[in-house]
């Protein structure tokens, strides 16, 4: 187990190098100068410009800049945003709960719908249920997020008026952030209707963000279920006289879940990538929206730090998924 952990963690090192190098280089490949953008349309005095470039270290060769950046990162310093002058880490931590809240709700939606639907499609293979589930999930998988989001906004927010268009909560409510999670904070605030408002703001973004993971989970569950249903132990379970609910829901599902959990883990990366678009569409004040704004401002430290932190989160989630296998698959737990 310890060896397993050590190898998994050792594998994070090349990923770390890759992520930092890639973001560092990519950002600088985008045309545009952060200091000129900061100065705005009025322009900037050349002396002041040179001074600021020295201050941010942009006058040094790229390799030196990268080296300095890595040294800082290893010391836990992600730098300060050029625009807001606040530490990148602080900004990230302030905004991250919003993204977690959205991603979690999207994932819960994807799992709660995707798993049962995939099971039904697998068990009722070849029926109208199977075909419609597979057809709809393929459509969902192929749908561009931004377009899907706009469609839902037009239908539910604009035409039907059921849900708000954007934001995390109605402007009618104001309270201090305690946990950063709007659902919890709104409950803690004790203001009537605040929680309802928070939930209604979450519905559409969660559906939009959860659609692709939902499609992937449904398809994976179906194929995994199909495979498992042919196994000898499923026949044994039926030969024991167990009711079908138990045969499918316990004996088959437990085995079918193993590959599905892998896929759910991999979807976390997809989810955070999708969050960038979803947050932009719904003006959701999370990491995605912040990263997009940082790109527009060429806020190098914010982008570098933000992407690195997102990458670390994805890596940690994947690591915990690996550890989770042991819980559902005893054959891994006991392998020495």
């Amino acid at each position, binding site marked *: 187990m310890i060896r397993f952990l050590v190898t998994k963690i050792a594998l994070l090192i090349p990923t770390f190098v890759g992520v930092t190098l890639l973001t560092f280089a990519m950002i600088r490949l985008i045309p545009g100068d952060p200091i000129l953008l900061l100065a705005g349309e009025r322009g900037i005095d050349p002396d002041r410009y040179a001074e600021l470039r020295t201050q941010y270290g942009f006058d040094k060769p790229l390799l030196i800049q990268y080296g300095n950046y890595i040294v800082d990162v290893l010391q836990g310093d992600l730098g300060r945003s050029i625009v807001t002058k606040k530490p990148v880490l602080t900004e990230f931590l302030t905004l991250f709960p919003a993204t977690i809240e959205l991603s979690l709700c999207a994932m819960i939606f994807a799992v709660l719908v995707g798993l049962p639907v995939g099971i039904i499609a697998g068990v009722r293979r070849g029926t109208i249920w199977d075909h419609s589930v597979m057809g709809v999930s393929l459509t969902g998988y192929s749908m561009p997020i931004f377009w899907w989001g706009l469609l839902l906004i037009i239908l539910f927010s604009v035409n039907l008026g059921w849900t708000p268009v954007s934001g995390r909560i109605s402007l009618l409510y104001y309270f201090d952030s305690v946990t950063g999670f709007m659902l919890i904070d709104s409950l803690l605030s004790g203001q009537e209707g605040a929680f309802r408002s928070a939930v209604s703001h979450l519905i559409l973004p969660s559906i939009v963000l959860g659609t692709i993971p939902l499609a992937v989970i449904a398809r994976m569950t179906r194929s995994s279920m199909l495979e498992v249903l042919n196994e000898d*132990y499923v*026949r*044994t379970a039926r030969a*024991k006289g167990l009711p079908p609910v138990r045969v499918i829901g316990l004996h088959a599902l437990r085995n079918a879940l193993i590959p599905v959990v892998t896929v759910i883990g991999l979807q976390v990366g997809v989810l955070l990538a999708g969050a960038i678009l979803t947050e932009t569409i719904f003006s959701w004040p999370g990491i995605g929206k912040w990263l997009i704004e940082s790109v527009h401002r060429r806020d190098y430290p914010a982008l570098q730090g933000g992407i690195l932190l997102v990458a670390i989160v994805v890596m940690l989630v994947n690591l915990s998924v690996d550890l989770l296998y042991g819980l559902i698959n005893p*054959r891994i737990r006991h392998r020495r």
Partner: protein
Amino acid sequence: MAALVEIRNLSVEFQTARGSFRAVDGIDLTIEAGEVVGIVGESGSGKSVSMLALMGLIVWPGKVQADRLTFDGHDLLAMTPAQRRRIIGKDIAMVFQEPITSLNPCFTVGFQIMETLAVHEGGSRADRRRRTVELLGQVGIPAPESRLSSFPHQLSGGMNQRVMIAMAIACNPRLLIADEPTTALDVTIQAQILDLLVNLQQDRGMALTLITHDMGVVAETAERVIVMYAGQQVEEQPVDALFANPAHPYTAALLDALPERSAGRRRLATIPGVVPGIEDRPRGCLFHPRCRFAEQRCVDEQPLLVPDARGRFVRCHYALVDGEPTNKEPGSIRGEPQRETTP
């Protein structure tokens, strides 16, 4: 008194892309309480499928039809699935061929046995646990208490098969179906498992149906033998009579292939060809392409499973007596086939 199991004209068909395939074709079978019946045949002869049909374990695209399918006088075909599940796993239990894949890898063996008890007998958790330890002991698993929390992959094939047997006998079944229970095990373990099955059968007075392709296993255990070929029953006889005087040429050929019966010959006897599949099912007697004694009549006319002159049930126009075909009409078109056997 009614027989424990009565099967009349049981057929199992599988719908495939190329049309339907009859895996079991009109089986008649009666099993009396406490009796050991052997079902013998090559792979693909329909022996497992017919017993799976009795258990109600044939799934889509398989289709089961029968004139009569009863257990202890109750019509299994008329039952709802829920009623049938009350019998399956309790009164009729089955042990499968591959012990390791037949147990669920995600659950402990203790859980899997206790689950059967919970579904059929209820009782308290402690009761079930005590019963399970008892059962594991009865099937010869050492230190049964400590094995409860083992997973199937931590046990050997033989141990897993013992667990399967413990699971099958948990609710004191009146019929135990063992589907090639020793095929996946090595030879020394095979003998132990067979002994275990026979001892359990005698101690508990349950009926035992042993599906096998091994004539030697049948000789040691069964009282009555049913020989199947390509989904049909071709012969049914008490074991001693069958070994002494097989009536169907297929049975005779199977017996000839036993090493014990080939003393003095340099090579083991074999049966040329393979069991016909979905594409190449012959007309007439299904065995005629491989039969040494086949006549034109065997090609034209399918024989029925009827008693021959000696009262033996056999599906052959020319049932063998002492290795020689009987009822041969003079002037048959094919004439007397070449034979190299010595009397």
